[in-house]
């Protein structure tokens, strides 16, 4: 098996190869390293790599463990002990994580090797990875386009066989939207299903860690490792996690799927709409019953999100003040000057905008009009989902209204960028789970660009949406398509 053949396999297949001793974990790390050297100059998916530690861990790998010897890339907003954790921000330049996040501890306990830190929008604020203070990541399907965001590095790395699987974080769509734009699978768990301890906080009532993978089965494998209660995170749910792999099957008879009429809006690209329509027919032919449902508060979700998420961010990011860690402005004349200049020089424009907006909506005189009202509308959005889930098992929609857009196309207009998350945001506000799976391609300027289908499930019903997504995936070939950069040619 050549290096490129090794890096192209799924986690499930790699697990078999390792257990049959057809490849060693050390060889896997070396194959990944070569792959990254060959393509990451073009893609920019990784921010840092520690090959030496990975090789050391690979040599001790126990391949009988569920993820034994399997390298997993980690979004650079999740702490891995001894590794940088920059959040793609200048303000955390030079920072090294003094501890492992719970999800990283759990991956290690399952035998996995945390391998490399992937690029993101600064502090996960963005939908294109262009807000990274370090570099932009490019879409493996068309290098002139964005990979989505904020987990764009994780999505691009998995799509281009630079990672077998990756962790991302999803506050308003940051796992699902880049998964859709790069043609991979991305799961946002129910709020509280996965520990947030060691995930740098952006919006604490919305953030969740989840997997980005080549297949639905691989997402289930990673969920088996990371789901569950964590005493270190008081918002994590004290509920047993099921075996997500065991629940996968191909039969959709008796499954009821809802298509929200409010999601079929004008702004959807016709090619995206056609792919979703075809997927709905496919679900129907697999035995699922399709119902039209209504989520009347949908049109308020983006506005609610950008009030609540920025309010929480303004409080969470107050800790970056140049005192205890990270960047500090030079020669401050007093402590206020230290704060003001450290934050001026350390944060990029989108982070500043959101802190300012969040500070404003929480400020005296505006709190009731903005923040409190947004929290109430959030409750209405949650009730919409409660109501439809009485009748159906999951909702189907596009993950993103459009396929990957061009680098630079939306950076000057934050509102346009925010609207990229129109279908993913409500799930975070309601705390429910969601998954994006590849469901077709759009043709743009001679490039094939992946389209993602989103399934939203009830709270703690990850097993169900994984099962539905798996049945669909196994009846199509979309997940087998490889981007041009993943072919054996030396450069795309």
């Amino acid at each position: 098996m050549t290096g490129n053949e090794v890096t192209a396999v799924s986690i499930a297949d790699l697990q078999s190869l390792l257990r049959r001793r057809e490849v060693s974990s050390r060889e896997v790390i070396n194959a990944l390293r070569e792959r990254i050297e060959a393509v990451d100059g073009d893609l920019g998916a990784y921010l840092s790599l520690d090959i030496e530690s990975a090789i050391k861990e690979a040599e001790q790998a126990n391949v009988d463990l569920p993820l034994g010897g399997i390298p997993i890339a980690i979004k650079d907003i999740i702490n891995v002990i001894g590794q940088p954790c920059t959040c793609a921000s200048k303000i955390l330049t030079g920072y090294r994580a003094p501890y492992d996040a719970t999800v990283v501890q759990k991956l290690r306990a399952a035998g996995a090797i945390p391998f490399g830190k992937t690029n993101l929008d600064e502090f996960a604020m963005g939908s294109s990875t262009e807000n990274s203070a370090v570099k932009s990541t490019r879409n493996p399907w068309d290098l002139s386009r964005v990979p989505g965001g904020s987990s764009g590095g994780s999505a691009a790395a998995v799509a281009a066989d630079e990672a077998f699987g990756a962790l991302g974080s999803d506050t308003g769509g940051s796992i699902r939207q880049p998964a859709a734009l790069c043609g991979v699978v991305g799961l946002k768990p129910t709020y509280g299903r996965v520990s947030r301890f060691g995930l740098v906080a952006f919006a604490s009532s919305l953030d969740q860690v989840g997997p980005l993978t080549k297949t639905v089965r691989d997402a289930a494998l990673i969920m088996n490792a990371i789901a569950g209660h964590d005493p270190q995170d008081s918002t994590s749910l004290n509920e047993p996690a099921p075996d997500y792999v065991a629940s996968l099957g191909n039969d959709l008879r008796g499954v009821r799927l809802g298509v929200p009429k409010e999601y079929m809006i004008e702004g959807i690209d016709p090619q995206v709409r056609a792919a979703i329509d075809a997927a709905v027919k496919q679900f129907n032919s697999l035995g699922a019953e399709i119902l039209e449902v209504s989520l009347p508060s949908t049109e308020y979700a983006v506005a609610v999100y950008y009030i609540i998420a920025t309010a929480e961010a303004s409080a969470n990011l107050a800790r970056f003040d140049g005192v205890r860690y990270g960047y500090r402005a030079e020669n401050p004349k007093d402590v206020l000057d230290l704060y003001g200049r450290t934050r001026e020089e350390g944060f990029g424009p989108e982070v500043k905008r959101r802190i300012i907006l969040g500070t404003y909506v929480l400020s005296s005189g505006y709190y009731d009009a903005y923040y409190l009202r947004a929290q109430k509308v959030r409750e209405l959005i949650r009730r919409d989902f409660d109501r439809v889930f009485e009748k159906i098992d999951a909702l189907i929609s596009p993950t993103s209204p459009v396929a990957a857009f061009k680098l630079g196309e939306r950076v000057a207009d934050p509102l346009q960028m925010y609207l990229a998350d129109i279908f993913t945001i409500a799930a975070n506000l309601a705390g429910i789970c969601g998954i994006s799976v590849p469901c077709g391609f759009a043709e743009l300027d001679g490039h094939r660009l992946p389209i993602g289908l989103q399934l939203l499930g009830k709270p703690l019903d990850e097993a169900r949406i994984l099962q539905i997504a798996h049945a669909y995936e196994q009846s199509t070939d979309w997940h087998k398509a490889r981007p041009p950069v993943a072919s054996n040619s030396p450069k795309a």
Partner: protein
Amino acid sequence: MTGTSDLDVAYVARLARINLTADEAKIFQRQLDNVLKYAEKLRQVDVTGVEAAAHVLPVFNVFRADTPGDWFTAERALSNAPRQANGLFIVPKVVE
């Protein structure tokens, strides 16, 4: 200087301890005025009698035993400090 909303970017940035250049304040003012204009649609929603959402699932009063355990040493907590001495973070003088 304010725009179409009540937001005064320069003032709020000071509250948030972020220095801004005049140019930056001007650009943010225009961009955030747009976002706030978009958010005005929330005023149309009837929220009478609706309780504000806190946790999305019914989770209340999470307790744990108050038992001591291993955590950071001072050395580890200081390992990323921009300036430190004698086991302390060093900052500019606060009190004259």
